Each structure stands twice: as structure tokens, then as C-alpha cells.
């Protein structure tokens, strides 16, 4: 073990160390950044306009003019997959913000104050846990129209209590720690204790969970689209594309459903890996021992 690794100043040292420490984090981050790049550069990269239909070139096999082939409406699958990443992030990021916006304070208060608020949160969680999310999402989306905005709001709201539970768990462990008791003993008002002492520490654990919840958001929006409730054609959303492609799978036009399915799975996997890696890095106990 005596060989000295790359000298500390070498710029590669830091990422390599990270990669060795938690490969899942690096792979996850790589995938998410790749799709983020796709989303940002979509109009530039995509060979065709995603909703432009070539009436005379329906269901063309991959290769040739359409790299990933064309779908039932004669639209290029590759462009639609690329633009689909915009919708994935378009849902995941704002839904994530809503989750944090509502979940964080809710979890903080419930964890710190306890009492009826904590009880209320737990009961809503019971209801949510026993409730098939498909129905909740369906009804609300149907009521508010099937636009992207209503989708994001529904997913964000649906998930905030779950996110709040994560924050609450963090806060509960912190609340019993000595430095918090000391802060209270010194006479800090409760909001200061929460804001200054507990929140910064709770944020760490919570942010590790955020990518997992964003993965869930992308997946649930695609499931809703697949059932035929979420975002519909012609918007290039992966779930809707899989749904349309589903029928073609058996008659041999496998590419219509395969590529959006792969894209959806890889991005959701990327988010999950990122979250898992993040929890590992931030949580010393579970860090496991280096080689």
C-alpha cells in the first residue's frame, strides 16, 4: 500500500477519491447531469421538432433518417426522447421545490414542537400510506385539467408529507442532542433554535433524500401518462410515449416504447443513485470503511 496515489495537487485527485469512496454517487451525478444537459440543449441537439409529424413516414425503423425510428404519428422518437427530458426535469425540479417548501417547515415544526401538529402529520401519513397514489393523482389532475402545472402541483403536494417525515426524523434525532439542549438552556427562543441550530443540520439528511423523491416524481408522472391521465400527446413526455408505443411492441415496432422506457429508467436510476450515494457520503455511520 506504500505507492503514493496521484499527488494531492493533481486536479483529478478529488473526483477519483469521491469515485472510490462512493461510486453510486458519481455514476448518479453523471447520469443526472447528462440528462440535464440534454434538457437544456434540447432545441439545439434534437434533429427534428418533437411535435412535427411526417405524415408519410409513420413507424419507420431506427437508422436512416430517424435515428431512433419514428412513432405512430410519424414523429421522430429521438427528438421526442431528448425533449422528454425537459418534461422530466420540468416536473422533478418544481415538484422537488414544492416538497422542500412545504415538507421542510412542516417536518421541522412537527419534529420540534410535537403535539397536535406532529399527530396530524402522522395521521396524514397513515392516510397517504393506505391510499393508492394513482387515485389521488388521477382525481386531482382530472379536476385541474391535465396541464404540466397541475401535474407538478399534484406530485409536489402528494410528496410533501413523505418528505416532511424524513425531515421530522432528522429533527427528532437532533432535538435530543446535547448542543440543542444547550442552545435552549442558554435561552434562545424556539424559532431561533429551530432556524439556526436544527435546520442547517437537518438540511444535510433531507437533501440526501431529495433526489430519491425527485426520482419518484418522474416515475409517478410517467405512470399517470401511461394510464392515460397525465400529460398527453403531442407533448413529448416519456410516459405518454411508452403508452403509445406499448401497442406496437408486439407487432414488431419495439423502438417506439423501448427508447422512452430506457430514458425514463436511466434518469430515475440516476436520481436514485445520486440520492443513495449522497446518503452514504453524508452519513458517517453508514459510510463503510475504505479499502
Amino acid at each position, binding site marked *: 500500500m506504500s505507492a503514493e496515489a496521484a499527488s494531492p495537487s493533481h486536479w483529478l485527485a478529488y473526483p477519483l477519491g469521491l469515485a472510490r469512496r462512493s461510486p453510486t454517487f458519481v455514476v448518479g451525478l453523471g447520469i443526472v447531469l447528462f440528462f440535464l444537459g440534454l434538457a437544456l440543449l434540447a432545441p439545439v441537439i434534437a434533429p427534428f421538432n418533437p411535435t412535427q409529424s411526417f*405524415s408519410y413516414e*409513420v413507424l419507420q425503423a431506427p437508422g436512416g433518417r430517424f435515428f431512433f425510428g419514428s412513432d*405512430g*404519428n410519424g414523429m421522430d422518437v429521438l427528438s421526442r426522447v431528448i425533449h422528454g427530458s425537459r418534461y422530466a426535469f420540468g416536473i422533478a425540479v418544481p415538484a422537488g421545490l414544492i416538497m422542500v417548501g412545504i415538507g421542510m417547515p412542516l417536518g421541522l415544526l412537527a419534529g420540534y414542537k410535537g403535539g397536535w401538529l406532529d399527530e396530524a402529520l402522522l395521521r396524514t401519513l397513515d392516510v397517504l400510506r393506505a391510499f393508492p397514489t394513482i387515485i389521488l393523482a388521477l382525481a386531482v389532475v382530472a379536476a385541474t385539467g391535465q396541464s404540466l402545472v397541475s401535474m407538478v402541483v399534484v406530485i409536489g403536494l402528494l410528496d410533501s408529507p413523505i418528505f416532511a417525515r424524513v425531515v421530522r426524523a432528522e429533527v427528532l434525532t437532533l432535538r435530543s442532542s446535547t448542543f440543542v439542549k444547550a442552545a435552549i438552556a442558554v435561552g434562545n427562543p424556539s424559532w431561533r433554535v429551530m432556524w439556526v441550530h436544527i435546520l442547517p443540520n437537518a438540511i444535510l439528511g433531507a437533501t440526501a433524500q431529495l433526489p430519491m423523491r425527485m426520482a419518484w416524481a418522474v416515475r409517478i408522472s410517467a405512470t399517470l401518462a401511461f394510464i392515460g391521465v397525465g400529460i398527453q400527446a*403531442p407533448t413529448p413526455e416519456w410516459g405518454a410515449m411508452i403508452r403509445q408505443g*406499448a401497442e*406496437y411492441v408486439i407487432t414488431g*415496432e419495439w423502438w417506439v416504447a423501448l427508447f422512452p422506457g430506457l430514458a425514463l429508467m436511466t434518469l430515475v436510476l440516476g436520481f436514485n443513485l445520486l440520492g443513495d450515494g449522497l446518503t452514504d457520503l453524508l452519513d458517517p455511520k453508514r459510510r463503510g470503511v475504505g479499502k
Partner: protein
Amino acid sequence: MIKSFSKTIMLVIGMWATLAVPVVAQEKTLVMAMSATPKGFDPDIWVPGQIEAAVNLYEGLTRYGTRTGGNGKPEVDPSKIEPHLAESWTVSPDGKTYLFKLKKGVRSPFGNELTSQDIVWTYEKSAVQKRTGQFMRTAARIDKVEAISKYEVRYTLSDANRIFLGALTLHLPAIFDSVEAKKHATPEDPYATKWLALNTAGFGPYHLQTLQGGQQAVFVVNPNYAFKKPYFTRMVWREVPSPATRVALIRTGQVQYAEQIPFQQLTALRADNSVKVESVPGFGGATVRMNPRYPPFDKVKVRQAVAYATDYAAIGEAVFLGQGTRSRSMLNSPIAGAVSAYKYETDYNKAKQLLSEAGYPNGVDVTLEYSTNWWWEEPLVLQMQASLAKAGIRVTPKRIPSTEMLARRTINVWTVPFLTHLTSSFVPDPSYNMFLTAHCRGSSNVNANCDAAMDKLIDASVVERDQKRWLALLEQAQNLQADSATFVETFLPGTHEVFAACMKGYVWKPHNRLVWKDLTCAS
């Protein structure tokens, strides 16, 4: 590790299952992959799967004749009405009273013979239920139904009309075996509607043997059927909700018929020699309709502009994949009296010119609402959006749940300004069809397509008994409708039934459902 684990399990089970399959008794069974098991069998109550079953369980007093079509195959001839459960009938000079003589020895699976009592009982039942059966009675203008003797029934009509005999070909209102049905009547349900909802008692070729909701329904041949015995003695109706799975089943020969196969699959299936696709244009047209009560569609020039700005060629290719036939009027053959009244062709300049004349020089913003009742709605809306944009008509597609669409397009509700709809009806009679779609009181009138002159023409055609004058009225009405341009006529999607290769004998019927008794298998 998981992969190989599940693979070996399936291998073992797969082998084991096939070994143990017994030889099915000599019955000829036809297996159908349907989207859902029927939720009821009473033709008066519309529920999913009811019509597909009822057309094979109940039959009418009359039936349409058949002729050899252009491709040499038998097809229905709507101009000829032949006797069926009724042996013969006489008509009074004023065309208002019909006296039917029933065929003797017609028995239901329960052994009861068909008598005039059964006919009277069915109309009484429809009157109580006030549902689809009752509607047919008003459409055919039936006033009274009386049993004269055991085998004679007299119909009195409120006024002579051409729809009546055609209406009697239908399974609706169904001729029940009232003797059997009465055994299940109860004080609060005198016409045994509850029993008839989930059981069958009629004089048709088949009747229900078992029903396992959500899984499977089995129908067997009526041993006492009065006409030629069907080839298939046992029909197994399997519920397979996913279309992709249905396609897989028909292509691997596991089933002999698959229902509601997505249109885009047809080209691939035609190329597959283990499958036979029977296509018939039918007379239902895919249309985009405008409601004159909502601006900008209140101006006829705007409506005509939309008709001109529609890219018919692209719709034919991208939506119907070259397999539809162009719709030339609100009535299409084989309906008698159909003329090609709809003369609009794609012409963006004319559309723009009409728009500016109507007061919209820089185009107009509209919302085109569609739902999931028919597969072609979504791709058609996409094509309309693309082509109309070229004439400055900016369309925003909006998808609404099918139940909401059903509610908002009902007569006198009419709150959908711009929507997609299929012209369809059970009876191929021109007057009846025009009554349905273009008359103020027509139940399939979904876009307030209501105009006094048109109503007058249609009412006249219904009672007009002279053939020449009748055809003239029909032509006039179709031209009036085309000029009003409240319908954008695109294509007839046609009916495409997918069978196993060995199947023969399919004849398309106006109710557009599969008739099991005609089918045979040459394997």
C-alpha cells in the same frame, strides 16, 4: 442470480402445463380476446360489452337481404328487408298498420315457443325502463303493439314511415322468451329486468352458459335455433384489457378473434399470414364538428374556412394510414340515397380569404376538444392543428375524459364548441340517420346542428313514400348540410375485424358488431 432463478421456474412450469392439457370434447370452440367481459345482456340498458353479446342472443322479426359485393364476398343489402322471426306481414293502404304472422316452431333454449305474447311483453318492458328500447320505439314512430292471435301481432304507427321495417331488423327492443323471464319477475321488478341483466332468454342463435366477471364468459349454441345451425357451438369470451396482449394472442394463434385492435397495427397484421384482417368501409365517418352557437363558428364563412384548411391527404396517410375511404357526405354508401355533397378540398388561400371576409383577417384562436372514445381522435386533432395553422387558425388541442364529453355533447346541452365525433347509427336508413345527426331532436346531434329548413326536409323524407321525390329530398338535405359546413367530413375509418387465418364467412352488419353464427373455420 434472480434472472436464471425465474427462468428455470418458468421452464419447468411451462413444460408441465402443456403436458397436462386434455383433448377438448368434439365441440367447435371459438376463443375471442375481448377488451372486457360483458357487464350486462339486456339490450335496453347500455353497458360495456352488452351490444357485442346481444346481437348474437336476440334477433328481430325481419332481417336485411344479402347480395354479392364488388369483391365477390356476400354483403348486406339495406334496400331489401326479408322475413326472419316473422314469416310474412301485410301493410294497410295508409302504411300505418302492419300485421305480422310469426314463424311457427321457433323455440328458445328453454323450450318455450315464440308467440305474439313475447312481442307485446318486450314493448311493455321497454316502456317501463324508458331507456334505449323506448327511444327506438319513438324513432320508428310505433304507437301500439297488439297480439291478435297466438302467431299474429299488429303494429299501429303514429305515421307511415320508412324507418319502421329497418328498425325491426334490430336486436333492440329484444324479443325475449317472456314465459321464462316471468319466472324471475318479482313484485318490485315485474319485468325481471334484474334477472335479464345478467341472464339471457331469447330466440337468437346463442345463449349464455357461464359468466365470470373480469375473466371469461362462455356462450353455447341454442339447440332449438329455428334457422341454420351455426358452425361454432361454443364461444369463449376472454377479458384481455391490454391491446398489446390481444395482438400477441391473435398472432400466436391462441385466440381466433381479437377485438378493438389498434388501427396502426393493421398494416403489420395484414402482412402476417397467421392472421386474416377483414376490412369494410361501413358508413360511419370520422368528423370534426363545429357548434354554430359559439363564436367564431357562428359565421358560416369561418366554418367553411376550417373545411378548406383541412389537409385531407395528410389525414388519410398519417391518421388512417391509407386504409380509410374519403367521406363525401353525412350519408355514405351502402346507405341508399347517399350523394357526394361534401366538395371541400384543401385550399389554404381560399380559407384565409374566407376568414378575412368573416372579419378575422389575422386568424383566430380556437380549442379543439377530443376524448378517448375512438382511437383516431388524438392523431386527427394533431393533423388538424398542423394544417389549420397554415391558414391562421391556431388550434389548441384539449383532451377531456370520455364521460365529460358524453355529458357535454348531449342534445340541448351542446356545450362543446369544436369537437371530434363519429357519425354512426344502427339502422342504414337515410332518413333515420339524418334524423339522428342533423335534426334538432336527433340524439346523435352533438353540435347544435339544428336548422329549421333542415328539420323540415328530414321530417318530409321520413314520411315521403314516393321513391323519386324521397331521393330528391335526401339530396337536397345532404347539400344543405355540406354547405352549412358544420361538419368537416374526413374519412370512414371502416371496420377491421382481425381473425385467425382459417376463419371464413364474416359479413359486416349495420350495427357494426361481429355476428358469430356466420363464422366458420376451414382448418
